[in-house]
């Protein structure tokens, strides 16, 4: 236990945690959305993220960028970022739709018990991550250094880099747009209706199957954004990157109240920060264990999470 270290590094740990938490929050949206509508945990969501993190690398690779290339000029970086985001979003979205089609739809038609969905999702997750593992020979893949972290704001020993600002701002914008979409648009109303009561919604003319596919798609898009930011922040990706971060994202969703969009944001940021404090306190090797312990504690004390679970009452 290293209390003086924690207090000394409080600022740096907080800002690192916020950037990490922003990624986790976007990732957690996929769990929360699917849970809100279907009351099921989409175990394969981690692989939606994984394929996104490789998709942008492949696109950058087409332009001859790898981990050893020099940082291009600002205009080129913006272009590459947009292309990478686009590729990751498209691939993640398609993967999410594919997972719904293969692992969820056939079971839904047969009214299978909830655990059956979990098992097929596990199967899909295992298949995707292990195929990536075999193709990449289980090696880590480096990310081209598109953005060199440089200090923008310095307060005491807290250095805020341009990359951290980019990540946090991008995450907040994405969350804001999604929140507006769910609460204001016609499709968003459909999603909330199905989340509240699927049968009534179907009677009122909402196409349930389409809403479910839409929810998977939105979760995939958000995971795609998260994947690009993860690549830039960590600098490497691996076939099990999605799995490890996925557990954290799920913890964040439960922490904020699964099924609750704003809860995912709160839970993500909070988890990122708490994790880093734990790492400062006990040592970095315990960073991941901290999130599991936290998950168990939340479920024991307040299983509905901080903001309560509900997508149907998303306005609250």
């Amino acid at each position, binding site marked *: 236990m290293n209390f003086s270290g924690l207090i000394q590094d409080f600022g740096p740990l907080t800002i690192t945690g916020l950037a990490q938490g922003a990624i986790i929050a976007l990732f957690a949206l996929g769990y929360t959305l699917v849970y809100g509508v279907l009351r099921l945990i989409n175990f394969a969501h981690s692989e939606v993220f994984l394929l996104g993190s490789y998709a942008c690398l492949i696109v950058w690779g087409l332009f001859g960028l790898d981990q050893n290339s020099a940082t291009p000029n600002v205009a080129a970086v913006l272009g590459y970022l947009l292309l990478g985001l686009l590729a990751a979003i498209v691939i993640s979205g398609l993967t999410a739709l594919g997972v719904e089609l293969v692992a969820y739809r056939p079971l839904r038609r047969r*009214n299978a018990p909830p655990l059956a969905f*979990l*098992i097929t999702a*596990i199967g899909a997750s295992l298949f995707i991550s292990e195929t990536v*593992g075999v193709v990449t020979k289980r090696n880590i893949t480096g990310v081209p250094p598109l953005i060199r972290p440089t200090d923008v704001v310095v307060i005491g020993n807290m250095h805020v880099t341009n990359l951290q600002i980019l990540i946090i701002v991008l995450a907040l914008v994405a969350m804001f747009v999604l929140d507006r979409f769910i609460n204001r648009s016609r499709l968003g109303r459909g999603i909330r209706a199905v989340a509240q009561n699927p049968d009534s919604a179907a009677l009122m003319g909402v196409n349930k199957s389409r809403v479910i596919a839409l929810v998977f798609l939105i979760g995939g898009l958000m995971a795609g954004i998260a994947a690009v930011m993860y690549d830039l922040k960590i600098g490497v990706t691996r076939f099990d990157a999605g799995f490890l971060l996925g557990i954290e994202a799920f913890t964040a969703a439960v922490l904020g109240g699964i099924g609750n969009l704003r809860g995912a944001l709160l839970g993500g940021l909070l988890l990122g920060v708490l994790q880093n404090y734990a790492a400062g306190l006990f040592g970095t090797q315990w960073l991941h264990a901290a999130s*599991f312990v936290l*998950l168990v504690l939340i*479920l024991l004390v307040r299983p509905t999470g901080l903001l309560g679970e509900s997508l149907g009452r998303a306005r609250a």
Partner: protein
Amino acid sequence: MTTTESPATGAVPEAEKKNWRTSGGVRGWFGRQHWAVRTALSIVFAVLAFLLPYVGDVPVIGPQIVTQGIDWPSALFNISYYVLLALGLNVVVGFAGLLDLGYVGFFAVGAYTVAMLTSPDSVLHTEWAWLASIPIALAITMVSGLILGWPTLRLRGDYLAIVTLGFAEIIRIFATSSETLRGDRGFSDIPHPPGSYADGKPIFGVADATPYYWLGLSVIILVIFGVRNLDRSRVGRSWLAIREDEEAAEIMGVRTIKYKLWAFAIGAFIGGLGGVMFAGQQGFMNSQTFILQFSILVLAGVVMGGSGNIFGAILGGALISYIPDRLRGIEDPIFHTDLFGFRFAIFGLVIIAIMIFRPQGIIPSRRRAMELKDREKEVAPQ
């Protein structure tokens, strides 16, 4: 059970005679035999299982069965501990309906306890014999089952799955990071089981895995007896009630907390048994031994074989070990890697296919198959 018709009443109703399926197939036929015939058949089957190490000597089909990339007795021993794990997980998932994704955690606890108590590398410096460490290892695994079970009792199925996953992951992180558990360096010189031939050579040596397989098979047979009797007892009926409807079971006076804890403890016990045997045969283990995909693989085995049915679980456990071992040493034409590397990916697909096309598994539990049919009828027209 439905098949235990008394042989004294003899005659099978006419309607059932006409169709092999309606009369319960192989299991129905087996159940109608005299108890002596049933015992004799079981013994014949067990003897055949004990003779499996020599199947390679059978002309024509023998060489097709044995593995190439790994010697056949070792492959058989691998099968035996996978079957043990599948039997244990079947108690938790199949009987009690609690989805446990961290089952490998118990396997690790069992193996690590043995390593700690016996290996000269351990900080305890006890260096016990393998046999002496077993009771303590099993007791600790059972307690770890209770420790996992207790906080998760109130959780719904899917939450439970994630928490158990976290449990296994914590154990792995602990094994990697903690100085006492030695991380990657691991424990070496874990002693083998005791016993020697008349000429002084040890029975459980390094070269030949056949005695280990026989040991494993004997343990499996004992476990089958234990689990089967549990399933048919008050405990088993309580598990069934909890699986089908926990609230209803509670209202009818089933002490759900007690029996859920029992399921966890017994599942953990059997998993720990697997770990103990594994440690005794390998002689070495480190934190890389217990990857998480392993838990999911065993789950795939149970689901594939038919969860809730002991023989389904055995078949599933044997397949998840045998198929990858058989693929070992065979190169795939596209990536030119050992096909063994694809094992988890292949089983990922198998799990999906089974859940979609035959959710009750290869050898289903009748009751579970009927539960699934019932649900299908309830489906609302879309």
